[in-house]
């Protein structure tokens, strides 16, 4: 059985490395709740690399505008066409911000338009149950960004499965802490990441 490696995409136009603690935190979460064979460290893969489709789940975040190069656009298309999943999170959680506007434009241009993901989608029951849809974060109403509670995630589907999962909820900030600090939390706020990974590996 092959090992799941959490891949973070590096792209040329912005600050792709704005959430360096998210990968180890998600890896820690996967190990805590599942028996999935996961690599202890994540990997950074250039978005324009031909190796991109080797990873079933690719994480992309940032604050700055996202502008795909021709190579990045081609590889993202390959990733999606081959059944991979791209998880994009707006680290600004600002629908008026440049990241959201440019990233959604690039996704629309490369793969297709984003649509709301219904809150009863199988993603929300892929491992843990989230009957109300995507869990809210403590950053959505922190006074920065758009100060909105986003009720839905956005998605582009391929043959009925989620190919692109887009979040305005700033999971990059919510999950951007050292995994050892989980012990101080009453409820582990990274459990939704397990659903995302399990969905990407099993759908």
């Amino acid at each position, binding site marked *: 059985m092959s090992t799941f490696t959490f891949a973070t995409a590096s792209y040329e136009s912005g600050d792709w490395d704005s959430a360096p603690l998210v990968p180890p935190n998600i890896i820690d979460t996967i190990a*805590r709740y599942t028996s999935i064979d996961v690599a*202890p460290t994540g990997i950074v893969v250039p978005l324009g690399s031909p190796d991109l489709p080797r990873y079933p789940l690719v994480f992309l975040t940032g604050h700055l505008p996202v502008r795909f190069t021709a190579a990045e656009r081609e590889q993202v298309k390959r990733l999606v066409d081959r059944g991979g999943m791209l998880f994009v999170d707006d680290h600004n959680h600002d629908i008026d911000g440049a990241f959201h506007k440019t990233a959604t434009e690039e996704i629309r241009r490369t793969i297709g338009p984003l649509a709301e993901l219904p809150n009863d989608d199988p993603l929300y029951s892929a491992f843990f149950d989230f009957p109300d849809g995507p869990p809210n974060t403590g950053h959505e109403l922190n006074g920065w960004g758009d100060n909105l509670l986003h009720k839905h995630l956005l998605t582009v589907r391929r043959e009925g499965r989620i190919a692109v999962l887009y979040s305005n909820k700033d999971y990059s900030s919510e999950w951007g802490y050292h995994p050892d600090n989980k012990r101080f939390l009453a409820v582990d706020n990274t459990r939704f990441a397990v659903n995302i990974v399990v969905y990407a590996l099993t759908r």
Partner: protein
Amino acid sequence: MSARERVARTRAVLGATAVVASLVRGAAVAALVLVVAGALDWALGIERSARVAIVPAALAAGALVSVVSLWRARRALRLGAVALWIEERIPTLRFALVTAMEPRAAGVALPELERAVSNVRWRAPVAATALRAIGLPALLLGAAVGVRAVLPPGVVSRIEAPRVGDSLESPRAAAASGASRLSPLVATITPPAYTRRKPTTLEEPATIAALASSGVRLEGPGRGAGMRASLGGEALEVTGTSGRWSVIFAMPARPAVVRLGDGARSRVIVLEPLPDSAPSVTLTSPARDTVMRDARGVVKMAAGASDDFGLTAVWFEYIVSSGEGESFKFRSGTAARRAVRGGSSTASLESALRLDSLALRPGDVVHLRAVAVDGNTATGPDTGVSETRVLRVARAGEYDSIAVEGAPPPDADASALSQRMLIQLAEELERRRPRLERRVVIEESRRIGTDQARLRRRVGDIIFERLGNSESGEESSGTSPRAAMTPEELLRAANAATAGESAHALDFEGDETPVVALNRPLLEAYNAMWAAGRELETGEPDDALPHMRVALAAIMRARDAERLYLRGRAPAVVVDLAKVRLAGKIDSASARGRTPRARLSSSSATRAARLDAALLLLPSNPSAALDSLVLLRVAALADAPRLAADIGAAVESLRAGKDASAPLLRARRTAAGAPVTRTNAGEWGGAW
């Protein structure tokens, strides 16, 4: 007039007669060829590829006849021959004319010969000859023209001006009783106006490939009564005029099938939409990303754009990102925007970006790209963009050798609803208001008002905080002169205090409580929240919304205050998997047991199965198999164009009655895909 002169004149007349006669003969032959061809086309039908050659052939035959006729009449060019010709017809001349034509031979007898010739007239034989030479061909020509006049108009045009789509003009195409009205079939495709392309016509199309939104008109012989037509399951109207039926529709955006029906007969036509490509844009300058120490100078910008049909506008676009950590601001703009005149398919753009005009600071990032828009008015203009160049201004300490680790970020306070959320709630209540009881509206409005008041108090805490005393302005003691002031008075006082130079120290002025961190937008927000709260308390969310929006706008302006958010560089974290494996608490979570999902069927496997089914059907029911292949082709157009092309070739062969083995074999191999390599043989099942 001497004999010579008379013969010369006769030669001129005979020469003209020969020329006219040859022309008339040539015209008669050409006309006869056309008439005969028309009659054959009327009776038997001639393919357009052959009809195209009829007019040139007729002209060639006529020219040949004219040339041969002229050649045969060449003797009329020589005076001696003309004189002999006259002698043959006027025997009484007894060669006097011929002799008179040779003065040296005539010698002294020339005057007598001239006298003998001058008394003889040969006009009548010349006229008779001319009449014979021209009359008969003229009669033939007239007969041919007459026959042409009585031929049906469609026949004449099919012969004289053959074109694609003239099969309907043939009288044979008119549907006799019981004959199929599905053939001949003519399709006229009119591209969208913005393409400036002329309509095209197809005969007997099995597939129509055209731009999406092109107008398509299908025509056939006979009236439309009783005909059926559908596109993608939706019925189309069949109209009939001038002995033809027609169906009009627009080319859809996705491959589809048009079904035509006439009684028990049916016909399927594949619609293959061609996309209008977005413009292709190339940014040639700046050629690469850049990091600058100083944001000064000019950046030269150059780009080229091209489109398949025509461009309407091109420009440069930039986004300036300022900030760091978790706080960023963005500014965007365009430069050198211009319209492309005349819908040209190519355009170039040059400009210069003055960095001083962008007010860049260390750490700022400029994203620059070129944009072009085409003139697609059918499905909406398409936008093409170039690669993006990133120009970054180096931070002040970027080149320092000392790294400073900052403190972790403070916790975020998310206890209160934001003003934007309150506006959303109020708008939602206002939308539901017609369906709610007044009592419920008041209750919910007051609930929102409570949250609005809570937010107003938080804003008030920020505005009225004293130095060293965090007492809220709203709950301060009565001894403070500020406690007696209404919010409006506070706002006026604050406005007065901040009028003019903001550099003045604002604290410790007399006995007045200083307004620390005075922020006029926040005061404006505070005031607007008071007004909104009053309206919400009375159950009038619609009256509260304008004040709430004013408050939000003021808060947005206040957010421009600079924030420092220190964050150190996180060390690389390696997860100790052995330590944390299955250590998570799932007793409070509902980890649902999962059942395996059915494996998704591969599209290619589905297509291969459909192709196999169609091939099995071919021997027993060829028409059904043909329809299956056509529908499979439509399904494959978007995802498997090569398979679609192979199936298309097979369909064409089958429809033409040719051997389709080769194209079917190619399609089968394309559908099956590349050979799969297995590293081990499967288990033997015990049977051969």
